[in-house]
């Protein structure tokens, strides 16, 4: 049984590539409306955790549950349909399609008309298309991209491409939104605006959000809870204040020489 009410639960998830354990015994429970930050130094396994959750790679061991249903082993599109949407660290928009079409690709819900209906332009198909267009426009508006409706995705400025990716993820009607470094490459004020936006969409769509972010100040400020990974191992988790003071986290980020200098003892660390 999964925790009651959890929209996403990862239990003892392990990802093994040959001899490398990119992620070991990863546990996470997300409740509706929660905003959780996933942090860690480079190569800590954050994106691997995302890939394991969204089905890009099936986990080597452990289980992933979405709204109480076991999804590991399913293909990414099935997991997306189950309610997990994601963005990518290096933007992966459909570059040659318009902003609107990018969002429309993800609008699956309530689609009735099939392939044949499209050929014969049946009324059901036309109604479907109109509804999908209206919905896609709605998501563009939420992300402040209405003015870019007919622009090709590749021609958008960087910040808008990031936002378009979030709009596209929202359009799939997720329960959980996984954002992989949404603020990467943005300047300080853009980052603050983005985080406000993320808060807003969470409240508006009642989403659970899992966000990977490198900017410590930012992620500490917006997340209710943090999970810290290092070398694939969860070294700390909890409220930001606690994680900030956790010696293991400081060690992972700043090295043990820093700790020695500051005379902070790491529990369980070998003493010399």
């Amino acid at each position, binding site marked *: 049984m999964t925790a009651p009410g959890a929209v996403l639960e990862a239990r003892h998830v392990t990802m093994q590539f040959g001899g490398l354990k990119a992620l070991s015994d990863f546990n996470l429970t997300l409740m509706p409306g929660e905003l959780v930050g996933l942090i860690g130094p480079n190569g800590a396994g954050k994106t691997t955790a995302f890939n394991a959750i969204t089905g890009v790679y099936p986990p080597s061991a452990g289980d992933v549950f979405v709204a109480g249903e076991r999804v590991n082993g399913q293909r990414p*599109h099935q997991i997306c349909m189950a309610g997990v949407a994601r963005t990518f660290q290096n933007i*992966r928009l*459909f570059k040659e399609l*318009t902003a609107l079409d990018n969002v429309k*690709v993800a609008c699956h819900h309530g689609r009735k008309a099939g392939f044949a209906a499209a050929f014969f332009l049946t*009324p059901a198909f036309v109604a479907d298309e109109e509804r999908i267009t209206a919905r896609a426009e709605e998501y563009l508006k939420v992300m402040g991209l209405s003015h870019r*409706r007919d*622009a090709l995705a590749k021609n958008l400025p960087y910040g808008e491409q990031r936002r378009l990716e979030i709009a596209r993820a929202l359009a799939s009607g997720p329960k959980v939104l996984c954002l992989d470094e949404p603020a990467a490459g943005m300047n300080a004020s853009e980052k603050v605006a983005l985080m406000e936006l993320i808060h807003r969409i969470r409240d508006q769509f009642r989403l659970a959000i899992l966000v990977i972010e490198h900017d410590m100040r930012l992620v500490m400020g917006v997340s209710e809870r943090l999970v810290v990974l290092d070398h694939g191992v969860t070294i700390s988790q909890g409220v930001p204040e606690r994680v900030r003071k956790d010696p293991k986290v400081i060690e992972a980020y700043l090295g043990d020489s820093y700790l020695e200098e500051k005379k902070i003892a790491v529990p369980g660390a070998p003493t010399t």
Partner: protein
Amino acid sequence: MRPLRIVLRSALPFLIAIPLCLALQSVLSPGWSIIVIAAGINVILAVSLNVVNGFTGQFSIGHAGFAAVGAYTAAKITTAMHGLQIVGLSAGVSDQVVFLIALVAGMITAAMAGFLVGMPSLRLRGDYLAIVTLGFNEIIRVIIENTPFLGQATGISGLPRLTTVLWVGLGVIATISMARRLVGSTHGRALLAIREDEVAAEAMGVDTTGYKVRAFVIASAFAGLAGGLLVHLIQLCTPRSFTFVKSIEVVVMVVLGGMGSVTGSVVSALVLSFALEGLREVQQYRMVLYSLLLIVLMLTRPTGLFGTREIWDIIKLPGRRKAARVEVTP
């Protein structure tokens, strides 16, 4: 009122095409009508292949194999039904009905062949798919050449001459409408998304394998239609009409016109078909010409003549809410 308008919009291309084709049929000399029909068949092949190679971004080079499946199915049906008359219809009408049945049957068998080939192989990407489709093309040829029922290497001769400008015109319109409506639909957008970024498409809930197979099946069905039309034009159904060379010819048309542009496929299929007629004396150098053409194209205009643009994006039809693509400078 609204449903009526939708039905009208759906049937409009055909309603316009019928009188046009009939008019064309009456003015063309027999020699010219053969050339026009052959060009139309090439248009059907190129546009349908574009659904796989252009829209979906997969690379299939065995299109003639699917045309062969459709052609032999249709040829077998029309020869078997030859001389039979459907009760209550005159001989002429009866033949046409039989032809329609034969063409549809050809499309169905070709689609099934597409499904059989596509199902296992569309999990592969790029070059691998190309090799599999090429192999399929050869397998079909070898099977035909060794099956007495299909006339082996000599093929099936003495087919009735049933393909007319009208039939091909309707086939062309059906193919173009299919391609155009597909692109404008959710399904078509899913195909384009696969072309643009397969990983992202999959993450956005697009069943990539399923959509690729569907695109393949549709393209195969229309290749089957082209095959059926072709053999009832030349009144002979032999494996020589559906070799690897024919497949490459279609690929050249698609690449030349621009992968992903229906307009491009139509234009380049027409241009190449008519050019080939003009160059009958140098037929044996056809492959050399194709290669040269491709090399020049890749060096000077790698996106093809039209890129992914369409004529209906440039010339906006009145009364249609079709947003033009606005270029935005960041």
